[in-house]
């Protein structure tokens, strides 16, 4: 089966499936070749809860960029203990971080969008690629409506950069549904969410947002809204009407 056909099949077969059903299907369909990439965000904690309570054979990993909030590390610890899980962490390569910091400084991400992308590349994308070796599919907590770059998210997508299927079991959930689930099931979550942080990444590149601001307004807030992705999800090209979108559809 070709790659886009795999995605078409998934979309056709899982159109109305619940997130739990999507996860169970992924564990069967990609047995031994699927993993869940958790950023420890609210959506990801929902998926961790579903995977753990159903006892699904889906390994969970997270990317420890070395610049996370203390609260995020504590959440990682609490989550692993709460569900008696091993959440595998991937850490950036010392030589690459040292070379980058030596050349461009420890806070290079404030200097230009290129420098910011380089930092995301070294601290997130390269460790992610290492985590993805040997996978046929990866699972994410993306959902529609997570800000400008994530207006429309499908349950299954072809991830061109990773060269594999990406499964988003919560694609159709909205924020209220995520929080209802967290409260109903007493899922551990990052206390920063209660302090105005809807989307939490590296500490120096995240801030709280005001009421009514875009969901990802607190990520790389000094950049243009359509740039507020680390590159891990390749969403810029998916903003309807964007220059990148026009190129993609040309």
């Amino acid at each position, binding site marked *: 089966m070709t790659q886009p056909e795999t995605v078409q099949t998934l979309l056709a077969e899982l159109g109305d499936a619940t997130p739990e059903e999507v996860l169970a299907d992924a564990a069967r369909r990609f047995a031994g070749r699927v993993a869940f990439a958790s950023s420890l965000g609210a959506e990801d904690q929902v998926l961790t809860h579903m995977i753990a309570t159903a006892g699904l054979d889906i390994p969970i990993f997270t990317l420890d960029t070395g610049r996370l909030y*203390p609260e995020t590390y504590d959440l990682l*610890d609490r989550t*692993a*203990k709460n569900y008696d899980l091993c959440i595998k*962490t991937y850490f950036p390569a010392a030589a690459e971080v040292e070379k980058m910091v030596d050349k461009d400084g420890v*806070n290079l991400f404030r200097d230009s969008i290129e420098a910011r992308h380089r930092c995301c590349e070294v601290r997130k994308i390269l460790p992610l690629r290492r985590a993805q070796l040997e996978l046929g599919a990866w699972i994410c907590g993306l959902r529609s409506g997570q800000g400008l770059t994530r207006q429309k998210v499908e349950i299954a997508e072809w991830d061109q950069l990773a060269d594999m299927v990406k499964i988003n079991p919560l694609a159709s959930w909205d924020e209220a549904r995520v929080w209802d689930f967290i409260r109903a099931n007493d899922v551990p979550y990052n206390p920063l969410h209660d302090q105005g942080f809807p989307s939490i990444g590296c500490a120096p590149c995240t801030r709280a947002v005001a009421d009514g601001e875009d969901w990802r307004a607190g990520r790389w807030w000094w950049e243009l809204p359509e740039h507020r992705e680390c590159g891990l999800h390749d969403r810029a090209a998916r903003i309807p009407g964007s220059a990148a979108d026009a190129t993609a559809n040309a």
Partner: protein
Amino acid sequence: MTVDEPVADILARLQGLSAEEILADAVARYPGRVALASSLSPEDQALTHMIAAGGLGIPIFTLDTGRLHPEAHELIDRTNKRYGFRMRVYCPDAAEVEQMVADNGIDLFRDSEFLRQLCCETRKTRPLRRAQIGLDAWICGLRGGRGATSESVEPAEWDSEAGLLKLNPLAGWDEVRVWDYVRAHDVPYSPLYDQGFTTVDCAPCLRAGA
């Protein structure tokens, strides 16, 4: 090459010298083979200021354990900009951190003293050893009267674990003198000190003092 001068002779020679003079002596005696290991404490920041202001050209490095307070990185950045240099940053080995965390959890240091030391070893000591390759002497901001483990500090001591001479130019200083110096020279320091912290290190292993 290592330092063959007996520590007692070095101590005799350094007696009565100011911190700046000890630094100048170090760079003259061990050119290209001495560096300041900065933890970004006010003591280390004072030494950084002396090195920069004196144009001593002593390299400065710090250890980014991966669990530093976000404020620590801001301070590295501010310090680099203030003095127009870039301190070297040494990071732990990815495979070692990943293995340690997979085996023992991300906050293993809370579970036992052994695991706390394993964490320090992986995130601090090994990167420090890498930073020390090629050195004859390393400089620290240790001073006397800083708690049970560093009660008495001499300006020079033999570091048998590193196999290097260790120089503590602020050995004779007390806390008041450090802060007087920091304020008088407008030396950048971590805002955490203004929030009650008396030492700044990995975030999860610290809390504000009374």
